[in-house]
């Protein structure tokens, strides 16, 4: 039977989602622009950060622009450099959002924003024990991906390239090995710069893609949001359809017989 996207939901921790694109809510010039981009992306899961309330001016609230009946909020632990900080941020996010889901980040280096995977693993263990659904942002290391799965992570989220770099999938071979190494969903998180990057991630067999800067930083964020939606869909369908093998020489598409001379 012909494959259809409609009968192929993304299942994360027992919950089904139609969209395989997860998007961030940071770096938009305005909230109305973000709102439109979120809608056009078709995403159902959006990441948010947890920060101190500004006491001195009543700034507009992000959540005035996110319809939480349509979007699932996924609080992150961005900016945390130790397991303890990340666990605390996750607990604050749970309290504010009344949900157990967390995008777990423990950063190991300011310039690359690469994860500190040792601390990430420790924080994953702690949070899983506390009942969290943990989605860890990790590097493209298949061994660590497996350890995170064993620790109870609900998915693994390897980076394609550094956060915000737009460099695309730098190590497709490792992403493929990760896909073979774990049975939880694999979500490429970070590094996607344009639609083809998202399509490549999906063609490799990834279950979903998470991005923020690739959309928010585009010249026309709303158009890029839709481009990413289409790329993720196209990549998923191509993966399921089964691509032709690559070959060095040509194979004619038109009959070789009956050519009128």
């Amino acid at each position, binding site marked *: 039977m012909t494959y259809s996207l409609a009968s192929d939901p993304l299942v994360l921790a027992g919950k089904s989602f139609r969209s395989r694109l997860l998007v*961030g*809510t*940071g*770096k*938009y010039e305005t909230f109305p622009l*973000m709102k439109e981009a979120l809608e056009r992306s078709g995403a159902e899961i959006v*990441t*948010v*950060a*947890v*920060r*101190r*309330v500004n*006491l001195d001016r*009543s700034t507009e*609230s*992000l*959540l005035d622009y996110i319809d939480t009946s349509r979007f699932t*909020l996924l*609080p*992150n632990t*961005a900016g945390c450099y130790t397991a303890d900080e990340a666990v605390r941020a996750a*607990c*604050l*996010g749970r*309290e*504010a*959002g009344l949900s157990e889901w967390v995008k777990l980040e423990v950063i190991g280096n300011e310039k690359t924003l690469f994860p500190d995977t040792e601390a990430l693993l420790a924080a994953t263990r702690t949070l899983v024990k506390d009942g969290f659904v943990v989605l860890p942002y990790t590097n493209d290391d298949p061994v660590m991906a497996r350890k995170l799965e064993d620790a109870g992570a609900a998915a693994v989220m390897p980076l394609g390239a550094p*956060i*915000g770099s737009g460099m695309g999938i730098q190590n497709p071979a490792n992403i493929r090995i990760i896909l073979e190494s774990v049975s939880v969903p694999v979500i490429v998180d*970070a590094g996607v710069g344009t639609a083809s990057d998202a399509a490549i991630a999906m063609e490799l067999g990834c279950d979903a893609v*998470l*991005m*923020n*800067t690739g959309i928010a930083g585009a010249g026309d964020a709303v158009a890029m949001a839709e481009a990413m939606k289409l790329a993720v869909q196209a990549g998923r369908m191509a993966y399921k359809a089964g691509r032709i093998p690559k070959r060095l020489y040509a194979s004619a598409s038109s009959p070789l017989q009956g050519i009128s001379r």
Partner: protein
Amino acid sequence: MTLAINGETRTIPAAGNIRELLGVLGIGESRVAVELNGKIIRRAEWEQMRLSDMDRVEIVQFVGGG
């Protein structure tokens, strides 16, 4: 009373508990989390939790992020 709120020392009209404090500060109650002296206080306990001078209070909310 004087409290350390989000890292700043502030003198504010007396607030008996966390719910009153949010009211005094003009902060809506939905989708915020509150920590008192390093411990997260669940919403259901906001009214029971008494505040004293020099308590450390953290009030956080969601902002845009990736």
